[in-house]
């Protein structure tokens, strides 16, 4: 009888090491402006989330919080490749994807702190970041649904003839739930401009994905079931992500239908809150810490001749923004009590009776 832990102790699964960086990516057709913008995005995401973590540990962020520290290259690369009117659909692990669309830090942080100046007035919280005017169509906290919802935005774009794409980010663990299958199958059948991006960070919450999945590549090995190509990339190389995104978006805009992309990555920390991620083999953690998206990107920019001080300037700018956002969030008011009773309905209220 075979069960996930019948042949090894919990945490003793075989480590999965990061891909080797492709040196040819240095020479890819990406402008230096795009690359500098990507670097800035990476810094914004990293520094923002480090601050969010501090605030969580200080008890200022209540409830829960899921960080993507270590996984920023995907959000930055895909985000940079999007058109301003494209749609993002993300998960509870959605801070980076929200920032990637240009949503300012301050309302995001205020939302994490449950303040009235939060992105959704404190009503949504960390797991539901949404900024429709930035194309950030929501962060979804129940596994699976948003893959199906992204299809609707893609369908609508097609119906309206706007050439927009809908980009949907989700985790490796999500590939085993029913909605994944329905959404992929539906998108492929209707040839929708949905780009599905699996952020494979090797773990669900506290369980290794390989322990509970019958194929080695949770997304890529499923692509053929939808008549799609298996595509797997180094999710810690922002340029690889950017290139893959550009190609997938082009196909989608050309009416060639959806893509399913598996981006290998890793979280530096645990799943959420104060989890330390100690169920992961030491060797694996170390290898991935050494394959950090920001280090990789900084080194590449230096190799391409960007001055170190220019990069430090970006880092400092961002640090200042984080300080300011922190201040604005902390200074934010508690939400108006009456806001608990607004926006159930389109008339702005919550009344169900006369």
């Amino acid at each position, binding site marked *: 009888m075979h069960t996930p832990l019948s042949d090894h102790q919990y945490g003793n699964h075989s480590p999965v090491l990061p891909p080797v960086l492709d040196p040819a990516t240095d020479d890819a057709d990406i402008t230096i402006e795009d690359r500098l913008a990507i670097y800035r995005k990476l810094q914004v995401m990293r520094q923002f989330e480090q601050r969010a973590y501090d605030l969580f540990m200080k008890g200022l962020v209540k409830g829960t919080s899921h960080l993507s520290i270590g996984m920023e290259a995907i959000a930055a690369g895909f985000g940079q490749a999007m058109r301003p009117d494209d*749609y993002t659909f993300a998960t509870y692990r959605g801070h980076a994807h929200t920032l990637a669309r240009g949503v300012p830090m301050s309302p995001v942080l205020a939302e994490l702190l449950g303040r009235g100046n939060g992105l*959704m*007035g404190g*009503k*949504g919280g960390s797991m*539901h970041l*949404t*900024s*429709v*005017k930035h194309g950030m*169509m*929501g962060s*979804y906290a*129940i596994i*699976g*649904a*948003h*893959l*199906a*919802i*992204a*299809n*609707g*935005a*893609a*369908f*609508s*774009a097609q*119906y*309206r003839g706007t050439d927009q794409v*809908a980009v949907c980010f989700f985790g490796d663990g999500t590939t085993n739930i*029913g*909605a994944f299958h*329905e*959404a992929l*199958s*539906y998108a492929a*059948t209707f040839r929708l401009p949905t780009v599905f991006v699996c952020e494979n960070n090797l773990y669900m919450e506290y369980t290794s994905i390989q322990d509970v999945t019958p194929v080695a590549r949770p997304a890529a090995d499923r692509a053929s079931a939808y008549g799609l190509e298996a595509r797997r990339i180094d999710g810690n190389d922002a340029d690889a992500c950017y290139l893959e995104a550009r190609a997938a978006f082009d196909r989608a805009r050309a009416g060639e239908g959806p893509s399913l992309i598996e981006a290998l990555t890793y979280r530096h920390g645990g799943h959420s809150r104060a989890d330390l991620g100690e169920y992961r083999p030491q060797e694996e953690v170390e290898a991935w810490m050494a394959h950090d998206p920001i280090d990789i990107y900084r080194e590449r920019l230096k190799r391409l001749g960007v001055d170190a001080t220019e990069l430090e300037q970006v880092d400092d700018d961002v640090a200042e923004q984080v300080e300011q956002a922190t201040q604005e969030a902390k200074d934010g008011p508690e939400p108006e009590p009456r*806001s608990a009773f*607004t*926006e*159930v*309905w*389109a008339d*702005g209220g*919550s*009344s*169900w*009776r*006369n």
Partner: protein
Amino acid sequence: MAELNYRHAVAQGIRQEMARDDDVVLIGEDVAGAGGVFKTTGGLLDEFGPRRVIDTPIAEQAILGATMGAAMTGLRPIAEIMFSDFFAVCWDIVANEIAKTRYMTDGQVSLPLVIKTGNGGSLRFGAQHSQSVENWAMMVPGIKVVAPSTPRDMVGLMAAAVRSDDPVLMFEHKGLYASKGEVPDGEVVDELGTAAIRRSGADATIVALALMVPRALEAADQLAEKGIELEVIDLRSLVPLDTQAIIDSVARTGRLFTVEENPRLLGWGAEIASIVAEECFWDLDGPIERITTPHVPLPSAASLEDLVIPSADEIATRVFKSLNS
């Protein structure tokens, strides 16, 4: 005025709105080519073409996900869930996503969508194809819940549902599809959240919904012969709820009965009973009684199904007994 089947009234309501507004699309299993398993969408494919009337795979989560995503980005989709029992396979999209998104985003997202579905029993389809699940929907803040009992209401409430900027679940009663009624010519648009007094009477208020409305009316006719005059309210919509119509009626009659097709526990009548027991307490001349299907899954044999779903006779007997005790 034309006489229409309730099933054709469904198509008529959709047709009226699709003709008016290009943003309205219809998706679901077998809704296009076949015109719907219950023939409630016949002719729409021919009229509006395959871009707007769309057959889907058997994938209810994908269907409602696509419906939601389309609604949040400018369309006004109508989706069909063939039997309301199948809401159970896509309840996450309804209860956790569609219902909550406007609130969670503090109003950033509007979801002008309609989900139409075949609801209810009496067709001997057994426990998994006969449920009355309007109470599943009523429970969840953020969705409107409509259940017309006549062809005219079906057209007008469908139009109101499509025009609503809120998500609406439209419960079509399978046992009423073959029923007929007059529908006015020209555009018909009704209002959500308004009950209709189908019969006035001073002795007791009967609140009913969908298939239970004609049965309650028949019971009222029976009791009228015994000199008992019932006021029969057709709720038409559970959310919003026309509480005032109920309260006013109970103030006049002093007695309340609900007639519910759902199994007993937490049928919609429980909510109404609790509202009246709080707000009309001093008006009440006797206990509130709920006449419901007992708390069992629905049996498929005709004789058993007829036994458990409230019939006109059962309603009349129960009300008579209670008023005379």
